């Protein structure tokens, strides 16, 4: 299960929409199964079919998370014209079995956000637990 607040989900959808016509992407920072922050990244693949997190964003996010006692716990990216399900390339390039892989599909008028674990090529969908905001600014950060 991946726990997150509505503002985190909204930040991922906003990143996906801003990236159009390309795929949008970013990192999830938090603790184990709980998202604390969504960090959008430029898609350095600059493509509607593939994504790659900006290496500078990657380094900065890892260092910043470590300084705050947090971890990078996963990644999100969008599928602009297909379902929120990992593609074979997503699976082949999944670097970390402990990560949460979140897909944002913009294929239908209502965006669809789903989370998966990818372990040794096996894809398992997990529940998204949307916690209510706890007094936070509802605007997406960054």
């Amino acid at each position, binding site marked *: 299960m991946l726990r997150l607040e509505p503002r985190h989900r909204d930040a991922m959808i906003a990143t996906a929409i801003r990236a159009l016509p390309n*795929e949008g*992407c970013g*990192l999830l920072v938090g603790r184990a199964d709980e998202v604390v922050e969504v960090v959008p990244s430029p898609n350095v*693949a600059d*493509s509607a*079919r*593939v*994504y*790659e*997190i900006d*290496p*500078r964003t*990657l*380094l900065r996010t*890892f260092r910043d998370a470590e300084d705050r006692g947090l971890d990078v716990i996963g*990644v999100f*990216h969008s599928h602009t014209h*297909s379902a929120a399900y*990992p*593609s074979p*390339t*997503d699976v082949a*390039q*999944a*670097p*970390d*079995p*402990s990560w949460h892989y979140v897909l944002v599909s913009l294929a239908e008028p209502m965006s669809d956000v789903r989370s998966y674990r990818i372990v040794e090529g096996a894809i398992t969908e997990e529940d998204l637990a949307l916690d209510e905001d706890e007094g936070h600014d509802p605007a997406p950060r960054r």
Partner: protein
Amino acid sequence: MAAVLRVPTVLRPAMGNNSVLEVEGSTIGEVLTRLTEAYPGARAQLLGEDGALHRFLNVYVNDDDVRYLGGLDAPVSDHDEITLLPAVAGGFL
């Protein structure tokens, strides 16, 4: 000369479960060559079959991506901090 190498979680099993290693070498190429000699199981994750940096590995010296510092020829100095991070990528290739 010794620099500090930070090992990401996914590479630790192939590198003696270390999170930080002290490494020797005056270039990134020398550092990675010595690493693969010490940890042969990590070679496929560090270098391509052609001996170049692995396409899906980001290597940084301090704050800089070595792709902009000459790749394997990027210089390494005493007390530099080298960070390895697998690229995060995907899509319908």
